[in-house]
């Protein structure tokens, strides 16, 4: 695609600038990793409007906003602002990144059990001994087939790799916050995460993308291009929550890719709370019998925001289970899309695969698109999919109002009720409350401006 290639070449100069500038200080393996990735990106380019996997998202605004690599934050926000993003989890391990750079002063490395190792970007960049990362990163996501993941690898600068050893139970959720803070210009960041959950280990992991108070007011556009890889070894039980609330002006491409061994379980929740374009891509490969993944997604949009949820689940072997429940709350002139692809390989008998997408339209101008794609090559499977589009129940609204509840609160209560199926999947009450608070602040129009601002 020639158009795509032209767009891709616009990156070349920025890449060279990055390699000579911010990214210069790096071991040989990392330079090689980046150059290889850049080649793979170059070969693919930005996907064009006719690309089957990108039907619902116009990539032109992304291509136009291929922004320079973010400089260091001019100012570190107060700890209070950071806590606003912390789901109330003030204790516990927390890694905070400002403009794509690890910020030790806002982070807390305590609370990780013995044996859990965590390598973040500074170590990656500084020491040749982490050369093993070259093989570890990219073992789940195939950057030869995902141009944005290739771009993320080309600009690999910071992020972290977390190893949970076999049998270890990490009690407190491990939380990451990626905050944009103003630098007076539009910028891009390429966070990179890898979590390896050893056999029979347990961990809850929270990925949170936001902007701090000052950034919210400045309103400069930014482009976040994140890649997160999960490796679940046999019997691992991993709960992941991904929250995107960078704001109405931002572009976000998020790739979550997981591979699962025998009897492992992944429960994933993604919460998309607005953005100019938010591409939420989730790939799961169920590689050994007994693996189970449950994907939950909630998107709450207004204005002219756009979210494109794109999932691919591969049932490679018999006796695996996948469920997907995505729910959209769409106001204004927003647009919410869901494409759910389930591929059941020929010998993947006894597969259970369920998929549902339900949408609540709050305005006459919002648009939702849903596209289930079931590719089933086995014959003894249970696969189901369903999609609905509806409005708030007028009788329920009247009922609530007849009890004294004002129309706005009544509406919010009903939206919360609609969303509760997703938030409750977080299991833990503190997490559920935290997610509900984030949704409430979005519904009250405060998503982009924290209260303290």
């Amino acid at each position, binding site marked *: 695609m020639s158009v795509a290639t032209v767009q891709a070449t616009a990156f070349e100069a920025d890449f060279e600038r990055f390699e000579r500038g911010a990214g210069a200080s790096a071991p040989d393996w990392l330079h090689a990793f980046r150059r290889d990735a850049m080649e793979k990106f170059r070969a693919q380019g930005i996907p064009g409007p006719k690309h089957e996997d990108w039907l619902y998202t116009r990539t032109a605004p992304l291509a136009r906003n291929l922004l320079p690599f973010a400089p260091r934050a001019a100012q570190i926000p107060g700890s209070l602002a950071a806590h606003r993003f912390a789901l109330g989890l003030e204790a516990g391990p927390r890694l905070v990144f400002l403009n794509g750079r690890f910020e030790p002063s806002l982070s807390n490395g305590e609370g990780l059990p013995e044996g859990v190792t965590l390598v973040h970007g500074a170590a990656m960049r500084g020491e040749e001994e982490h050369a093993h990362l070259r093989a570890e990163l990219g073992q789940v996501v195939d950057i030869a087939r995902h141009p944005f993941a290739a771009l993320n690898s080309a600009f690999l600068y910071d992020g972290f790799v977390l190893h949970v050893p076999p049998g270890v139970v990490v009690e407190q959720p491990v939380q990451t916050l990626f905050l944009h803070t103003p630098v007076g210009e539009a910028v891009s960041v390429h966070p990179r995460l890898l979590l390896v959950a050893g056999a029979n280990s347990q961990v809850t992991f929270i990925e949170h993308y936001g902007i701090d108070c000052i950034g919210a007011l400045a309103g400069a556009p930014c482009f976040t291009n994140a890649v997160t890889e999960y490796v679940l070894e046999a019997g691992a039980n991993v709960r992941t929550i991904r929250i995107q609330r960078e704001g109405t002006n931002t572009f976000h491409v998020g790739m979550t890719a997981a591979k699962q061994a025998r009897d492992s379980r992944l429960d994933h929740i993604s919460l998309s709370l607005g953005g100019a374009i938010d591409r939420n891509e989730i790939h799961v490969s169920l590689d050994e019998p007994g693996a189970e993944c449950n994907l939950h997604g909630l998107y709450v949009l207004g204005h002219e925001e756009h979210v494109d949820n794109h999932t691919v689940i591969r049932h490679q072997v018999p006796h695996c289970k996948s469920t997907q429940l995505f729910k959209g709350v769409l106001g204004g002139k927003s647009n919410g899309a869901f494409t759910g692809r389930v591929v059941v390989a020929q010998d993947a008998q006894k597969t259970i695969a369920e998929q549902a997408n339900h949408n609540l339209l709050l305005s006459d101008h919002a648009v939702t698109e849903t596209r289930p794609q079931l590719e089933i090559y086995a014959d003894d499977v249970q696969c189901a999919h369903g999609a609905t589009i509806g409005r708030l129940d007028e009788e*329920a609204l009247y009922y609530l109002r007849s*009890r004294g*509840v004002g129309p706005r609160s009544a509406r919010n*209560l009903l939206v919360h009720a609609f969303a509760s199926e997703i938030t409750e999947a977080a299991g833990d009450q503190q997490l559920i409350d935290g997610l509900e608070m984030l949704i409430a602040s979005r519904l009250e129009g405060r998503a982009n401006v924290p209260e303290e601002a």
Partner: protein
Amino acid sequence: MSNDTNSLLSVRGVHAAAGGKPILKGLDLEVKPGEVHAIMGPNGSGKSTLARVLTGHESAEVTAGEVLYKGQDLFELAPEERAREGMFLAFQYPVEIPGIANSTLLREGLNAIRDHRGESELDAIDFLQIARAKADILEMDHAMLSRAVNYGFSGGEKKRNEVLQMLVLEPTLAILDETDSGLDIDALKIVAKGVNALRAENRSFIVITHYQRLLDYIVPDVVHVLADGRIAKSGDKDLALELEAKGYAWLEEGANA
């Protein structure tokens, strides 16, 4: 009927349509503080439309007449404002709302009403204490408070839940729209017990019912018969017995004569 300025509610010459069809055709009703009015009548006479007109359901379109509630124009008030001014409707068909706990609805409603009265909001603990005490009157399991509003409730549970809400919100004017329909005698007695527990000098009730049976347990001060969108006859509680014995047909004959 006199236009008594002491009335809590004055319905004057109200005409209303539902789905474009005229239902109420010049209805008058005066309810004074502390009174219990029963409204009886055959199906289609306009009983439920009256309840909807009073509580502001958009399906009931008022085409003429006025209603004064506490001396103010009722039609100027939105449904939630009517509720905050003490009006309550026990629905004939309570709405199921999955995802919202009974206690959440009740606390939101009660606090909105308290706020309107200039009272402080109740915290979760104080609220639960009140709600549990009211549930005890109705012999309801406290677990019902944390279940989703009417969701998966049996018909009897829904009606009992309506009465629970009424006990918690302590209205000035409670309208019960066929709350007895579908209830067995034991459930009926419990519902009546809830209503009677609320009866007070400054609190009025409009009890809409198809059958006299409920009025054995909630004894009305006045009984009205609604026929073809108007009050055809009013009397004391004996009128209900007479209706039970004779049916509604004799009334319609009388009205047409």
